């Protein structure tokens, strides 16, 4: 049962075995698993509930209701746009359905350097295998590659770079190209279509889902969390209080919001909450082709190049990914103003777009900004900047190798590369956030997991240090940036955490 803000008529009190905060990749799975274990659950989601019938594929209508802050979330200084979903189902509703297992090298770092127990590739395998069929993860088929993806594929083949079709959680995709405006056909197997739908049909009696319900504070007593104070937005300025008493609380609100909630609740464990945030900053490289590319037709993110990524090298690097966007979102990274900008946008159907996703060092920090709300401080390190420049150069080389007449970077000063001789411009124009339009859809870290309680916020099983019944499980627990699209890692961690809770329930709620 999903209770929406408009249904609330006054203050509400709830009592449940488990309170889960956030209904995205982790929260939905944990809620399901807790219900499966026989527990009652209250699931709080700050965003609204929008079934697929609401998804009209219009940017103007969907961005305000599906994205956090209407898509307006920026790092300081520099203003890198950080996109996150804010609706029942979380970011899984608005992502491009790309599923990567956590690279073995990354799991190795987490196990060896961060001393996390039972997180090696072998230990995680069963969780991936449990999740993948449930959300219909399958490989993009050759006939599903659109021209934008084919540019990346053929470029990689020509240059001898390792590449592959993406794995996606999509069943019988209609290839409408508008995944990140919510899947109108219900074929993307987001949390909304899978775990949330299953919770409603199978465990509707045990799980109460509150949409438009923002958790404001965790209520503690000694080393235990005893409840959650929340508020339900009923629209038109009406807000009702919601108080949840629970034996156990799981915070799965996403990298930024989970840190924010802990900080607001005064639970800055070891002074580490909010630290070590990475975002996978991604510049766009746009190739202009004589013939039409029509990148928006078909699956937006269907192919990737992992030649320079941790997947192949075992070291931090970058991934090149084909991506396409509808017109408004496509217009954002383009440089220029007025007639110049119009000239570029008039070539929309001729543009091929490659995203360069940098696996960054985790140096960002979530801080409470008083009247200005929660802020994400983030700067590129010199090493990340160098990686980004290298990635942009290789993306340009690839586009040029496939016949692009020019490659336009997302740098704020119009930078156009016509050939190898122009590549130096990319470094000269700079890649600091003041110099370039960067986007991110993968905030990670903030409540890092680790065996060393002095350096971490949660232990090897996502339990917050110093508390017996408080867990954080979402991308915020990543000790380092993961280097690939993170949703499957989050889901596998949720499965792992659920399993641990099930095995230790008596001890946790004693």
């Amino acid at each position, binding site marked *: 049962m999903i209770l929406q803000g408009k249904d609330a008529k006054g203050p509400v009190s709830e009592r449940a075995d488990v309170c889960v905060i956030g209904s995205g990749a982790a929260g939905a799975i944990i809620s399901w698993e807790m219900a499966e274990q026989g527990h009652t659950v209250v699931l709080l989601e700050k965003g609204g509930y929008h079934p*697929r*019938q609401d*998804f*009209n*594929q*219009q*940017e*103007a209508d969907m961005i*305000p209701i599906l994205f956090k*802050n*209407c898509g*307006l979330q920026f790092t300081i200084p*520099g*203003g890198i746009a950080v996109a996150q979903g804010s609706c029942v189902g979380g970011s899984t509703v608005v992502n491009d359905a790309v599923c990567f297992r956590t690279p073995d090298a990354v799991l190795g770092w987490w196990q060896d350097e961060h001393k996390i127990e039972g997180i090696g590739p072998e230990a995680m395998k069963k969780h991936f295998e449990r999740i993948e069929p449930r959300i219909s993860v399958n490989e993009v*088929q050759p*006939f*599903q590659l659109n021209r934008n993806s084919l540019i990346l594929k053929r470029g990689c083949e020509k240059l001898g770079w390792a590449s592959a079709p993406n794995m996606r959680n999509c069943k*019988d995709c*209609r*290839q*409408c*190209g*508008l995944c990140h405006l919510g899947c*109108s*056909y*219900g074929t993307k197997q987001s949390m909304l279509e899978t775990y949330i739908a299953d919770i409603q049909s199978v465990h509707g009696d045990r799980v109460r889902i509150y949409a438009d319900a923002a958790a404001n504070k965790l209520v503690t007593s000694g080393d235990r969390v005893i409840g959650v104070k929340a508020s339900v937005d009923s629209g038109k300025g009406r807000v009702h209080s919601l108080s949840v008493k629970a034996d156990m609380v799981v915070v799965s609100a996403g990298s930024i919001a989970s840190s924010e909630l802990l900080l607001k609740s005064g639970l800055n464990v070891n002074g580490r909450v909010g630290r070590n945030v990475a975002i996978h900053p991604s510049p766009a490289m746009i190739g202009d082709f004589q013939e039409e590319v*029509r990148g*928006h*037709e*078909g699956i937006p993110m269907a192919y990737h190049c992992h030649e320079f990524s941790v997947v192949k090298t075992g070291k931090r690097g970058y991934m090149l990914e084909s991506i396409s966007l*509808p*017109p*408004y979102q*496509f*217009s*954002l990274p383009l440089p220029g*103003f*007025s*007639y110049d*900008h*119009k*000239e570029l*946008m*008039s*070539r*929309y*159907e001729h543009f091929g777009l490659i995203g360069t996703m940098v696996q960054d060092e985790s140096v960002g920090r979530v801080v409470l900004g008083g*009247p*200005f*709300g929660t802020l994400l401080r983030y700067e590129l390190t010199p090493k990340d900047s160098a990686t980004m420049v290298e990635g942009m150069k290789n993306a340009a080389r690839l586009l040029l190798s496939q016949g692009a007449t020019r490659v336009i970077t997302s740098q*704020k*000063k119009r930078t156009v590369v016509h050939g190898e001789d122009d590549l130096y411009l990319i470094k000269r124009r700079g890649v600091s956030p*003041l*110099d370039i*339009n960067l986007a991110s859809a993968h905030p990670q870290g903030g409540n890092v997991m680790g065996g060393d309680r002095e350096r971490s916020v949660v232990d090897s099983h996502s339990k917050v240090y110093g508390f017996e019944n408080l867990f954080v499980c979402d991308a915020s627990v990543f000790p380092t940036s993961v280097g690939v699209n993170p949703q499957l890692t989050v889901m596998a961690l949720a499965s792992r955490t659920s399993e641990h809770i099930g095995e230790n329930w008596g001890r946790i709620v004693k």
Partner: protein
Amino acid sequence: MTRASRLLNTNSHAKRRVSTLSFLLDPLALLLIGFVVGKVYYLALAFGDRVFTRGEVREGLVAAGAGVVSLFWVYSALLYLNVIYFPWPLPRWYQGSNWMLNSGLPLGLTRTPTTDVAALAIFATYPVWFLIGTELGKAGHRLSAAQRLRERKRIIKELAEAEFPKGGAIPLSAEEVGTAGSVETLLERIPPLFHDAITTLLFVFDSRFFVLAFTGRWKRFVDLDEEEKWRYMEVWEANSFLVSVAQILRMTFSYGYYTNRQVYGFFDYKGPMVPNLPPWFVPGPEAARITDEPGGPI
């Protein structure tokens, strides 16, 4: 001429000039600082009491005024009394009273009982200069909410036209596709803090202060002619910091322009497909059974 007579001559000179040229810079500096503080005050009010209450902003204004004027009083008095030199604590350049009386110009004024009285009188005017500056800076702050909204509408309309003028590769103008209206709608839907921040940016962009600084014209952006608007916008775009601000505004206006179906037509974007399948949809091996499933095409 003896040193004494030179002094005497200088003194008579001082009597003639002290009221017009001595203490030349302090009033101007106070006027300018007052203007900036007044501008900040005005822009803070654009946040509509959500970040700071109107009372807090007013207290801030009074505190800033008291602080700035006190600082000028103390520093200038110490200079005038030759307790410190100018520009203390940086390396010495002028004797304190010499600087206060001559402002670096070759006026030859020196301290006398007459100049002491004049100095006191000028010191007494310091708060007035600051006050005049703030009044100039916060001109318009008494606008009602409705008036401020009307002004914002005007800025949005003019800026939309400047961002998306008629002609070019996509000939439709902002006015023809209702960009300003869409931006207004967006501002009502986004979180209050962003609404206020973008509103503030719009007023900053429109400010006479910036127009004067960048184009030499004491006019608001909305009152500039087309060519002046271009010149003004080019300055924002050329500066590596201001270009980020300009891009936030451009992104906001793009929302109103590039989500329009008429604009789609110029680059052949098919737009939303629902309720139909996309025209380019190529059924794959498994697609034949799609329509039989629950939740098929809507």
